[in-house]
């Protein structure tokens, strides 16, 4: 299987605090990967580095062999923690917006998913609830035919039914050529969906292994292992 993301001695500091320290990580295509760690462990920093929103102090990060930049953004689909789409836009505007920006955006797919949610594309974002807005954003991100999806806390603010919808959206859009990274601290909710997990703690990589491997070897859930590794 081919490598989609490679980090070598990746280090990011904010002043004197290191948000990520000497991180070595290789991710392959075709996997759904959980990026797990407590608050402030460096999850979002890593995702921002992948998306070129932050620049590393030391080390390197390559997506499909290229450094973050215009070319990498063509193949990385990013769901940030916060929504950034202007409130005055209609849902259909956001779709046109994405269509303009990304050559790999599949408009038909986006409308299909909207229809599935009984969402009116003529509604303005302003008129949508917070949870619904998050779903719209996820639909936009998952409607791209990207090679790497980075979802930063996609299930943080939504109810259990919406969480199931989000996970199902990720599964139905899965393709073996792409890798999906999901950052979260709500592990129990998503661990059955994951192929692999990455634990980071205080900017260091603690563990990178397959979920079934961990369960086989440790005889416990990822959630219990997480509680053990990150006991306060």
């Amino acid at each position, binding site marked *: 299987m081919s490598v989609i993301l490679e980090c070598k001695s990746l280090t990011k500091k904010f002043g004197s605090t290191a948000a990520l320290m000497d991180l070595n990580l290789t991710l392959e295509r075709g996997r759904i990967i959980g990026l797990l760690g407590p608050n402030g462990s460096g999850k979002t920093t890593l995702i921002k580095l992948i998306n070129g929103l932050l620049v590393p102090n030391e080390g390197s990060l390559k997506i499909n062999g290229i450094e973050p930049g215009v070319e990498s953004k063509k193949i990385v689909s990013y769901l940030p923690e916060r929504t950034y789409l202007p409130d005055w836009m209609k849902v259909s505007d956001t779709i046109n917006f994405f269509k303009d920006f990304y050559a790999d955006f599949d408009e038909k797919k986006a409308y299909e998913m909207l229809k599935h949610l009984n969402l009116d594309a003529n509604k303005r974002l302003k008129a949508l609830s917070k949870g619904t807005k998050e779903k719209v954003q996820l639909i936009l991100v998952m409607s791209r035919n990207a090679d790497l999806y980075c979802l930063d806390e996609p299930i943080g603010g939504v109810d259990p039914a919406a969480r199931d919808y989000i996970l199902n959206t990720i599964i139905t859009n899965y393709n073996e050529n792409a890798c999906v990274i999901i950052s979260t601290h709500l592990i*129990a909710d998503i661990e059955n969906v994951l192929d692999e997990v990455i634990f980071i703690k205080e900017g260091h990589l603690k563990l990178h292994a397959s979920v*079934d491997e961990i369960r086989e070897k440790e005889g416990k859930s990822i959630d219990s292992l997480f509680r053990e590794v990150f006991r306060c």
Partner: protein
Amino acid sequence: MQWELNTDKPVYLQLVEQIQAGIISGIYKAGDKLPSVRELATEATVSPNTMQRAMTELERHGLVYANRTSGRFITSDENLIKKLKKQHITEITRDYLDRMELLGLQLDETISFITEVSESNNNKNSV
């Protein structure tokens, strides 16, 4: 099919067990076509890779076979299904007997207890 996954055991093993249980109980019948891996994965809310691994495992046991052009099917070998059912029942029974033994019951006590409980169940149902 209703999927119930716990979090301690490898997911693919649980999928294998539940599909086996589905075959034994007749939810999936001999020769039935199975939904696609992606559909099954969505239904169970698991990664398609994990569902694929479960299918490979079931194929290895001969319970499921893949036809290159038309998808995946449950085996038509009724004997194999019978054998699986017997194996499954044996496991459950053995497990039950072990637990009764741990509680200090002799085999004949357990057997008379089973009779007692199933009779009182029948009475309850008929009332």
